[in-house]
């Protein structure tokens, strides 16, 4: 199983070379992998269908609770088969869809990466590993949507999908980590049995909301649905594979997976059912406002995802079975429709239903496939989706508390599907062929194979559900319900309320289809608010607000004014120090030893006056001279308190500093007074507070002071062990010679820096 998950990634690395080696057959060759995987997972059907589950664990990052563990039960197997089975057809299709694209290798590589990630997602046992694959599907979706990257729309759509699902991803990560904390394990297989404790925990509601946010964004539920139609910028195989059959169902998978853990509570039922129902209706309605085939299909996908979500929200056994059946059916017919739309575009050069028509003659295979698939979309005929729809209706009608609300919604949703099915199934093919379509021709085998197989598959499964559908649906529904009830799937359930409902939706739907041109016209006038206040507009506003916030914050903080930076730093430091000194320090009487002598007072005054003069002087030389006075004053302090070395060095350094300053600024004019009164006052206050705080700190330190046994040690060993009587010098060259080594390195480097500054200039040549 591990090999199965990882093989996609390995082949993804090799894909570009593979394409180079096999040329036009690349699609067929790469399809061998998903085919093999389909066979592999198919072979497990008996075992899993009987209720077994497989578990594999490899150690990965145990410190973070991450182990590479996989868990295959009915739900996982349903998805795995979908991913690999449809994947096989998609790879074949891609080879024919982009035969001469120089980037076919990258495309297939990304598609394989996606397939691997998706398989990992549905098979992961460890929730963090699940998240890892979840994110990888988002990333590969980003690159696939943006595949035609020279188009700005494609780039924007790619980013939009990434950000919307990214928000959900972040929420999901938080959610599952909290879940892991609450449930005491990060393994889904363990968590499945701890639903009761988790639902009783105070963190349950946050966890639920976070996980749902993840699922809803991924599965394009209202109000996050808008990224999905935009994602139709992707090449058609991607739309069929990621944005219809598999990736968008990851959210549904998550809901199904979490049902035993988080489901069944009032908030779950209320949130999931409502959001699902609303999405179903919104998707169905919006589909009718489009003429681009892929757009219509995208919105019907949104509607279908809403339906699935709603079913999972209900949480009954009927609903679970309906959900799984419908999910399987949808993958088949929607895949067929998308691929058919791609074939149409390939063969006829357009995807707009207003420009298409009468193509049944020239494109018979595509027509047949699309027709069958459209029937399935409508939910009628000998197809699996009919069974799904009947189950859906039964489930809705059976559940008493919400029936009053959901039944009309489902009726409307079904009717809208019928109308959409009529649009995509009839418009392009029936009627007369417009003249501009005279060049239309049937697509090559690689392009018709996919739609035909998928559409036919829906029929086969519908006629003989017991072969494949029943074991899968039974097993996967069992995963949702944590108990096993055999699903009895059949086309004909006899006359019952569901069938009546079905019939009603058919009639309603056909009525809507007849009125479609009128609806479009009047809707065009009434849905202006969608572009003005709809969710996709929120997204745009969000981005704008973000960049506004970013820019104004940056203008404010990174203003370019050095003194504002300094002010912010000083205010921070002042604030912190003042707080600590006032609130954290116990003040004690301060020892003022040794006492002040007259000449000390004189030196102190000299230093302060020098400093003030330096601050106030209007001439450079004056300020420099005042600086020298301060330095000299400090030398005097050093002399009075037993530091002759310091005094001498201080004096020499001060002299050199003054010389340097004079040399460098001799030619400059007097200072101009640049700051205004307020600014100066502000700076006086800030600097004054800093000075006061420093003074307080110094005083405090002198009280807290203890004698240094280090100094004592030096006094002891200076002569005896280090052969020197000037202890300060011995410290410098022996006890702490490493400091001195660093110090002269600084000095040497500073000299190089000065040299470089003055010698190496862009305007000067490179004369050394």
């Amino acid at each position, binding site marked *: 199983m591990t090999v199965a998950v990882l093989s996609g990634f390995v082949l993804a690395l090799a894909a570009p070379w593979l394409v180079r080696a096999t040329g036009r057959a690349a699609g067929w060759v790469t399809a061998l992998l998903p085919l093999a995987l389909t066979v592999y997972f198919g072979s497990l059907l008996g075992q899993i269908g009987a209720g077994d589950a497989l578990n594999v664990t490899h150690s990965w990052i145990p410190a973070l609770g991450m182990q590479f563990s996989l868990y295959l039960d009915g739900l996982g197997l349903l998805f795995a088969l979908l991913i690999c089975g449809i994947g096989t057809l998609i790879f074949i299709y891609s080879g024919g869809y982009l035969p001469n694209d120089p980037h076919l290798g990258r495309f297939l590589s990304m598609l394989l990466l996606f397939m691997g990630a998706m398989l990992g997602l549905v098979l992961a046992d460890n929730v963090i590993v699940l998240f890892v694959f979840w994110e990888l599907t988002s990333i590969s979706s980003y690159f696939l949507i943006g595949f035609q990257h020279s188009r700005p729309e494609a780039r924007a759509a790619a980013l939009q999908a990434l950000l919307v699902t990214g928000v959900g991803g972040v929420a999901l990560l938080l959610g599952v980590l909290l879940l892991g904390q609450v449930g005491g394990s990060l393994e889904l297989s363990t968590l499945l049995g701890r639903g009761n404790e988790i639902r009783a925990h105070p963190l349950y509601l946050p966890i639920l909301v976070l996980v749902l946010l993840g699922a809803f964004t991924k599965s394009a539920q209202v109000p996050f649905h808008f990224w999905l139609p935009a994602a139709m910028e992707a090449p058609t195989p991607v739309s069929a594979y990621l944005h219809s059959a598999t990736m968008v169902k990851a959210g549904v998978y998550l809901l199904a997976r979490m049902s035993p853990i988080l489901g069944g509570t009032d908030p779950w039922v209320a949130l999931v059912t409502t959001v699902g129902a609303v999405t179903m209706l919104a998707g169905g309605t919006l589909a009718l406002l489009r003429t681009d085939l892929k757009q219509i299909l995208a919105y019907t996908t949104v509607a279908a995802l809403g339906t699935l979500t709603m079913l999972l929200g209900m949480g009954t056994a009927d609903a679970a079975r309906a959900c799984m059946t419908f999910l399987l059916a949808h993958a088949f017919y929607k895949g067929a429709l998308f691929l058919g739309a791609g074939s149409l575009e390939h063969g006829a050069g357009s995807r707009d239903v207003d420009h298409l028509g009468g193509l049944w003659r020239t494109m018979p295979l595509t027509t047949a496939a699309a027709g069958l698939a459209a029937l399935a979309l409508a939910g009628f005929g000998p197809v699996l989706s009919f069974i799904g729809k009947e189950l859906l209706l039964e489930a809705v009608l059976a559940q008493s508390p919400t029936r009053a609300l959901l039944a009309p919604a489902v009726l409307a949703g079904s009717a809208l599907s019928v109308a959409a099915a009529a649009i995509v199934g009839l418009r392009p093919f029936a009627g007369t062929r417009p003249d501009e379509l005279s060049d239309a021709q049937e697509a090559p085998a690689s392009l018709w194979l996919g739609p035909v197989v998928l559409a036919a598959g829906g029929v086969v499964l519908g006629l003989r559900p017991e072969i494949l559908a029943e074991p899968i649906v039974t097993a996967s529904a069992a995963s949702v319900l944590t108990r096993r009830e055999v699903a009895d799937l059949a086309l004909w359930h006899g006359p019952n309320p569901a069938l009546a409902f079905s019939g009603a939706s058919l009639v309603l739907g056909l009525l809507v289809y007849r009125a479609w041109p009128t609806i479009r016209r009047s809707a065009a006038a009434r849905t202006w608010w969608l572009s003005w206040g709809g969710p996709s507009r929120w997204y745009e506003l969000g981005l704008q607000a973000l960049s506004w916030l970013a820019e104004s914050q940056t203008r404010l903080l990174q203003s370019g004014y050095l003194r504002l930076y300094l002010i912010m730093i000083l205010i921070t430091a002042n604030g912190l120090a003042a707080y600590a000194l006032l609130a954290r320090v116990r003040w004690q009487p301060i020892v003022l030893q040794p006492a002040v002598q007259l000449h000390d007072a004189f030196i102190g005054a000299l230093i302060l006056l020098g400093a003030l003069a330096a601050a106030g002087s209007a001439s450079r030389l004056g300020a420099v001279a005042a600086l020298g006075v301060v330095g000299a004053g400090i030398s005097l302090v050093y002399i009075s308190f037993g530091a002759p070395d310091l005094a001498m060095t201080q004096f020499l350094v001060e002299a050199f500093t003054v010389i340097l300053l004079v040399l460098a600024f001799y030619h400059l004019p007097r200072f101009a007074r640049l700051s205004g009164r307020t600014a100066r006052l502000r700076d006086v206050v800030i600097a004054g507070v800093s000075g006061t705080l420093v003074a307080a700190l110094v005083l405090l330190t002198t009280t807290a002071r203890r004698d240094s046994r280090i100094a004592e040690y030096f006094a002891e060993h200076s002569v005896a062990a280090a*052969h020197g009587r000037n202890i300060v010098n011995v410290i410098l060259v022996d006890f702490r010679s490493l400091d001195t080594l660093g110090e002269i390195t600084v000095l040497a480097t500073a000299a190089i820096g000065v040299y470089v500054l003055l010698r190496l200039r862009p305007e000067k040549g490179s004369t050394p």
Partner: protein
Amino acid sequence: MRSLILRTAARLLLPLLLLFSVFLLIRGHNEPGGGFAAGLVASAAFALHAFAEGLPQTRRMIRVDPISLLGAGLLVTAAGGVAGVLAGQPFLTGQWVSLAPVGLGHVDIGTPVVFDVGVYLVVVGAVLTIIFTIMEEA
């Protein structure tokens, strides 16, 4: 700048200051002084000479490029430190020999003294590099 008085003073002061700097360097281990202060005094001597006689003159007199003094000085200090390592002791461990030259009693020579000489060289090199470069700029 190049007045006669300054030139005469510089000519007189140069040897005196250099001598004083060597004095400070040598006695630094036992009395106030040391490599840094000594280096500053020596630099002052050369700087004064450069002010008085002009930079080219001074450069010619010193002969070595101050920048190479930086490397040399650092090498001297580091080498003194590595000597300890070669003797199997930690980096910068002092290695001492006691000499008793006739008539001078007892003198200790050790790597810390060598270290101070390195400091001296670096200081002279650094200060002269800085001052000379600025003077050429002006």
